[in-house]
């Protein structure tokens, strides 16, 4: 049977207050191992979030690189295969079977097309999309508030709640899943 998850979801007026809350939770965690998982929700991107939540390992550029490489190879093979197939049915008049200048153009386009498609695939994988909406998701987060979701053991709920309150949380929701 799956273990029940205990979550607290709090909303804050601005990013600075949310950052204070996360810092306080991290301090608490250092002392007593209170926090199991923290997730931050915001209406805009805050690159500085990595400083407080740690690095996000999202090597999307690898998808881009290998996608582009695959695209280049596939496009070149397509031109080569088409040239080879045409060779058997149409006289070439001394021209090369696989014409290189056109092959470069098609290879270039294939590189970009596959590169973009694979980058997008990487995005969906690392962003975890598509996914179901969480029941405790607050619409305010898409408007002007910052949300923090913390997963912890039931005995630590009150400590986290106090940390949220101290940092000026506007609303705190308790969720058990």
């Amino acid at each position, binding site marked *: 049977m799956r273990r029940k998850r205990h979550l607290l979801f709090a909303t804050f007026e601005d990013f600075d207050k949310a950052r204070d809350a996360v810092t306080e939770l991290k301090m608490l965690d250092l002392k007593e191992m209170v926090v199991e998982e923290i997730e931050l929700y915001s209406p805009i991107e805050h690159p500085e979030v990595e400083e407080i939540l740690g690095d996000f390992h999202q090597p*999307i550029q690898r998808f881009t690189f290998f996608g582009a490489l695959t695209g280049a190879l596939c496009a070149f093979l397509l031109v080569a295969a088409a040239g080879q197939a045409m060779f058997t049915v149409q006289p070439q008049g001394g021209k090369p079977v696989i014409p290189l200048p056109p092959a470069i*153009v098609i290879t270039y386009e294939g590189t970009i097309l596959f590169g973009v498609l694979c980058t997008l695939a990487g995005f969906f994988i690392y962003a975890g999309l598509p996914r179901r909406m969480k029941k405790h998701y607050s619409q305010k987060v*898409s408007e002007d508030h910052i949300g923090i979701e913390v997963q912890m053991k039931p005995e630590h709920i009150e400590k986290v709640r106090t940390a949220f309150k101290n940092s000026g949380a506007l609303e705190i929701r308790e969720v058990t899943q």
Partner: protein
Amino acid sequence: MSTYSMKDIEWAKINKDVLASLESPRALFWVVLAVCALLVACGVAAEVYQYNEGLGVALMDRPHFWQLYISNFVFWIGMSHSGTLLSAILLLTKADWRKPIYRFAEAMTLFSILTAAIFPVIHLGRVWNMYWVLPYPNERGIWPNFRSPLLWDAAAITTYATSSALFLYVGMIPDLAICRDNAKGWRKKLYTALSMGWMGRASEWMAFRKTYILIACFLVPLAVSVHSIVASDFAMSIMPDWHITSFPPYFVAGALYSGCAAIITLFVMLRYIFKFEAYMTTEIMDKTAKLTFAIAMVWNFLNLGEYASIWYSNDMYEKEVLLSKFFGAYAPVVWGMLICATVAPFAMAFEKFRHNMWAMFWLSLVLQLGMWLERFQIVSPPLASNHEPWTWAVVWPGTVQLTLTAASFGWFTMLFLIFCKIFPSVSMYEVKEMVFHRRHASSRTEMEDIGKIKDEVVRSEEGLA
């Protein structure tokens, strides 16, 4: 409201204003939409007529196999350039003034490509054989000939349309989530499906930003390659006035120029119809106009360079075509182009003019007319006086071609307006970012000013002592 006071807009108000644009546009929206639908209906009728009677009704005969359909194709491909290309370049250079206007510019790109893609099909005549350009094993045993620049076109445009659509879609996901949170009925279902469960989690934002920048990096060279390839349709031939080395950069500059002019037209239109006065400000118009002016000058340089290289080459065929362009039957087109695209942009050198929205609107239409004439004078006049004198003939486009041209403008505007009615045409999250950063920058400046005043007070007190 100026850009500099945009820092005072509340985030909730940004959501409210942009979401309101999806519900209640000005009455002009419906009038324009109805006119566009009428134009499209006329275009469909013209195409059905041409389909039944053959390409002869479009007055396409030797030597004029290429005429208005190809001019329109080049024009619409060109217009598609500025949206995605400028959005990507400005994103990579972190120019924050792009934020309120990039969404509609990217949508403009997508719908321009969709409009452009119609013309090769119409031009083909035998519409039902269009699928022959696709490379697949077939019973005919014949593959598309990749030596032809027309096939390069097919590859480039497919890639550009796909990548631009994905760039537009990815950039819209956070806004689709905002729409989902505030919508009801069919809109709620649509936005829920398209936003794919986006909740603004930190990991989503990180992946989003990385992806957005990576795709932008691909789109910049792609956009340049697409119009270079369209230029190759002409430059790879041996026709006088087409076989020119500088055609690719000339086409790219022309594409950027007409695209920027189209951005200005749509900027003023959306600002009025959807009441975006607080976001599409005179300062942003000023920057867009300056950029358009700079690109206009680049295009003029390349245009004059092309004339000069033909003149000094002393190639008799090239010179003959050039002279016939300026003094022959097509002279009104060439002089019209020069007035609209070379002389008219100088109006943008004046700040007062750049800050007048309606003046910019009419000027942008003049610039687009100039660029449309440019496409026509590239395609038609050389066919009228090429290497073989027995093929010389002046042919003007007939009613069918002109109707389909007008319909293409209706088609583009109709798709664009429908898009703006369903999807947010101003990026809410990016405008919020702009407001956030400007607010922080201004509070930093205030703090620095207070620090300086304190230092001065301390210094003067020390002096007094």
